[in-house]
Structures are given as structure tokens and as C-alpha cells.
């Protein structure tokens, strides 16, 4: 899973959001590390919708424009859990390796 996809799914994990809401939430959750462009966001949303990870939740009319909200599907939740587990395992492995290196340096 690519990083923008991971952050979009993460942003949608708690509640349905519209496009601008996703951009804001991704920026907040990633502490400004991930700045998604609108074109990239909607391309990802289209792809994730086609793959069944995300689906439209409801439409809202604001200032005469329809604002569509998206939510995570059950399959999207499973995919995000799997990716989170993979990242956790990777992080644990890297931490273990670094502590071994740190131990060797102290012995030397």
C-alpha cells in the first residue's frame, strides 16, 4: 500500500469525510508530512472505490454545490488493519536491529 493510500484510509477510519475534509485530516494526522493534492486525492478515491475499500456515504449541498462524503468499507478496514500490522512488524524489527547495534557500540 502506498503512503497516500494509507493516510486516506486512516483519515476515513473514524468517520465519513468529504474531499477537503480528507485533505485536512491527512495533514493533521501525518503532522504535516503528507500534503495531498486534490487531483491525487480523487484519483486515489476513485481507485479505492473501484477496489471496494472506500464507498460514497452521503451527499450534502453546500453553497449550491454537491459535497460527497466517503467512508471506509468493511474491506477497507481489513486492508488498513493488515497494513498497520505490517508497518508495526517492520517497525519492531527495525527497533530490535537498532538496539542490537546500540548494545554492540556500548560494549566496544
Amino acid at each position, binding site marked *: 500500500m502506498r503512503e497516500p493510500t494509507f493516510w486516506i484510509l486512516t483519515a476515513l477510519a473514524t468517520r465519513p469525510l*468529504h*474531499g*477537503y475534509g480528507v485533505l485536512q485530516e491527512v495533514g493533521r494526522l501525518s503532522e504535516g508530512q503528507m500534503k495531498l*493534492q*486534490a*487531483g491525487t486525492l480523487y*484519483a486515489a478515491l476513485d*481507485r479505492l472505490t*473501484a477496489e471496494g475499500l472506500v464507498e460514497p456515504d452521503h451527499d450534502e449541498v453546500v453553497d449550491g454545490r454537491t459535497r460527497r462524503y466517503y467512508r471506509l468499507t468493511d474491506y477497507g478496514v481489513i486492508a488498513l488493519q493488515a497494513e498497520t500490522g505490517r508497518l508495526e512488524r517492520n517497525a519492531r524489527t527495525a527497533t530490535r536491529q537498532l538496539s542490537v547495534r546500540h548494545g554492540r557500540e556500548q560494549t566496544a
Partner: protein
Amino acid sequence: MRGYRAALWAYPKGPRREELLDTLTAGGRTWPTPREVGNLFRHGMRARLGRPSSRGVVVLAVLVALSTAFLSAAVASRLAWETAPDFPVGAKLAAIQETLFPGTPHWAARNGDGVVDDTLRPSTGQLLLWGHDEDFGMATLTIGPEGRAIAGDYRAWTEAAAARLAREGWDVGTTAPTGPTDIASGRLLQEGTAVEATRDGITMTVETSTAVVGTPPGSFDVTATLLRLPHGHVAALTWTGWLIGALAGWLVTGWASRRTEEAGPVAGFLTRGPVVIALFLWTPLTVIGTLGLLLETFGDSASDKPFWSLSATWGYGVTQLGVLLCLMSVVVAAVDGRRRGQQAAASAGSASSVR
């Protein structure tokens, strides 16, 4: 807001444009940054293809766009050449002849009436049906001395002629020896010379030879062949045609892809199949032709054949068949999309009458 609306043209018509506009302007911005324009163009053109999780459709669209770009560039180039300056005539031609053959009666013969030369002189109908003859190429103008032969040493004459041309402002290249190669030793058995000179959008190849039948002993045959170089506006119009063709190919592929996204297996096969066959036929010609176009634009020597010549001669039937197959795909996509649209409207109508 207008800037965003213009950038959103890259997306297909539909609610997505408004949705994006809402997202883009929600933060209070009214004009897109160059990065945003690039991002919207890239993803908008991708969105035009539909099938968001398919990579195959992108590959197909790229190949179609490259092929239609090449075909469109070929048509644009052929038309642009019609507006290019013709070969020198009258006093200008006489001046060139006098520079090459001073004090000698001379002749000039044009090969091809217009832009190109096809020795079979086909009618428009024959041309559309069969394409050009294999020897077809750009029109040329050949000049030479009366009787073709000049008495003396061809090397000395070539050297003097090159000097005269240089004095008249021609950019003269190096003189190359010409003749057959001895198979046993691999050595060139020199029988003549060739030298190229360029000026005012014309390139002239001056060739001498002692091996031409009927050349008297102590003399040599000499001819100069003039070829027009593509002018700047020809290249500009050709590449404009290339861009228009690429865009058209991409947009039509996108339209057909979106229209058949929900199609059944038969309609899907009848849309994709002919395009895949057309690409199989077109791609070699597209690659060769596009390389020729790049050489014609950025190379430093003139070619006596247009970059699209293979598609108009040996590859003409293949090109025609490819066009027909692509048209078939478009027709299937149009008919199937319309049929499913009517079915959807009918089912929506019956659902509302039940209510």
C-alpha cells in the same frame, strides 16, 4: 475560480468537476498554483479513461495516442508542405546553374509536380485505394550541363565548383569519393565525387561520375539534385498536428473506455479487440515514422522521403486496416453505450410508474 474551472477541463464532464472545485476552493483559494494545474491535468486526463484501478487502459491509451499523433502529424506535415516556398525558378535558378556550370548551356528537370514525386502518377482514387508507389519521395529538381558530360578531371572540377558555391553563400560540406567497392580488397574504386551544399532552405547534392554509360573518355557526367528542406513553419504545424492527434486519440480512447466500462463481455471484446489488432499493425509504423519525424525536425540532413513514407507505401494497407478497426471499435462503443442508456432510462421509467 475561473482558473480552477479551466484546469478542471481535463476531467470528463460530470459531478466530479464540481466536487473538485468545492475541495480546491474550500480553503479560500481562488487561483490554482502551477503545481495544482499540473496535478489536475495529469489526474484529469487519467480520469477521462475511466476504469480507475486498471493499468491496461493507460497502456492502451498511450499507444493509441502515439499512433493517432503520428497519423495526424503526417497529414499536418503534408498540408504544411503545400505552403512551403517552392524551388527557385527563373533568375534565381539560372544563377545557381551559372554558379555550377559557368558559360555552359544547362538544363533543369523537375521530378514531381507538387510536394511529392510518385512516378506512377496515381489519381486521387487510386491513391486512396492503394497508396503511393514504393519509389515515392519528396519532389526534387535536377540540373546539369547540356549533354550531361564535362571534359576534364572530375576531382578538379568538383573542387572548383565547391569553391564557387561557397563564394555564393552556400554552406558546402566535404567532398566524398563515390564508386563501387572491390569485393576482394574492400577498397573503394573511385569513379566520381559527391558534395552537398545548403542555402536558403535548399540542399543541393552535386554528383560527378565517369561510369555513366555514354560518357566520352576524358569527360565525366555531372548532375545536381535540389531538395527542399522543411521550413520552420512546416515543423511547427507538423508538431501541432502531432499534439492534436495525441489529444484526440487519448480523448476518444477515454470516451470509448468509459462508455463500455459497464458493458457485457461481447461488447467489451468487440471494442477492445479491434483496437489491440490495430495497435499491433500500427505500432511498428508509428515507431519508425516518429523516429523519422524526430530526425526530420532535429537532424542536420535532408531526407528525400517524408517521415510518413512507409505508411503511405508498403504500410498503406496496414494503416488503412488499422483505421477501419478503430472506427469499428468506436461504432461498437457508441451503439452499446446508447443501447444501455436506453435500457437504463426504460427501467427508471418503469420503476417510477410502479411507485
